[in-house]
């Protein structure tokens, strides 16, 4: 445990930023989804690091719930993506603008 927690937190912040940039930059819906997973994982790493620093297992329990919610989110999100691509093949995030005012 010689690596200070600050290094872990900085690494998690960097990965979160990369995921956020990817979410803003990419137009492929699946890759945007993967970027969301990146951000979730960065937050999980932050939770585990704080759990170690504060000597509290509650952070790890929260990561468990985040994992469950991420799994449910992926299932529903990929279902929506499959439904969209069934109607319009090759659609990107810019093409799905039916609700635009």
């Amino acid at each position: 445990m010689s690596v200070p927690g600050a290094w872990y937190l900085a690494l998690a912040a960097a990965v979160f930023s990369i995921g956020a940039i990817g979410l803003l930059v990419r137009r492929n819906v699946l890759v945007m989804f993967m970027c969301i997973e990146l951000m979730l994982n960065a937050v999980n790493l932050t939770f585990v690091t704080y759990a170690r620093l504060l000597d509290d297992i509650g952070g790890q329990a929260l990561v468990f719930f985040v994992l469950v919610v991420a799994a449910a989110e992926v299932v529903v999100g990929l279902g929506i993506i499959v439904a969209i691509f069934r109607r319009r093949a090759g659609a990107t995030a810019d093409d799905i603008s039916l609700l635009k005012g």
Partner: protein
Amino acid sequence: MIDWLVFAVAGAAMLAGALGVVFSTNPVHAALMLVMTLFGVAVLFVAQAAHFLAAVQVIVYAGAIVVLFLFVIMLLGIDKAENLRTEPLRGQRPLAFLAGLGVLTAVLFLARGAWVTGASSRVAPISGPGSNVQKLASVLFSRYLLAFEVTSVLLVIAVVGAVVLTGREPEVPVVPDDVPVSAGDDTIASEVDQ
């Protein structure tokens, strides 16, 4: 020393994988890069004594979620390379990079020298006798029991939602024009006559 080595290797794998997800043109390559990041996170979980979460990370994320991503990519046949040069909204990409890096520097600057505050736990500490799985289970099934039950409900709802979203609607039977009027009208008419 070995801790720093593990952290450096896993951290480099995480950063390289994250950059690979963002900058690879092929979605399949992006999914494989995501696996690399997830394994890096799992290694760092082990390094911080979160053994159960590391196992779950590998099994659920790398084993199930990424496979689901790859399955959808193959199913829909969108494993074509995407042209990253075209910019749909002018000036959006530089702004996105600027925003992301700005948030990163703001977080690092604000947190400089003041990473952790607060007292350490006395209710459910990580240190002490017992394995990590045992401690996590005891806190999960006592203190967070309601949340645990709610997540099971959430999973059921997600499964039902996925089935509803991806299931094909049944074909509406076409009613031909020369079908005689149903018998209900006749009975009403006869009652009116009486």
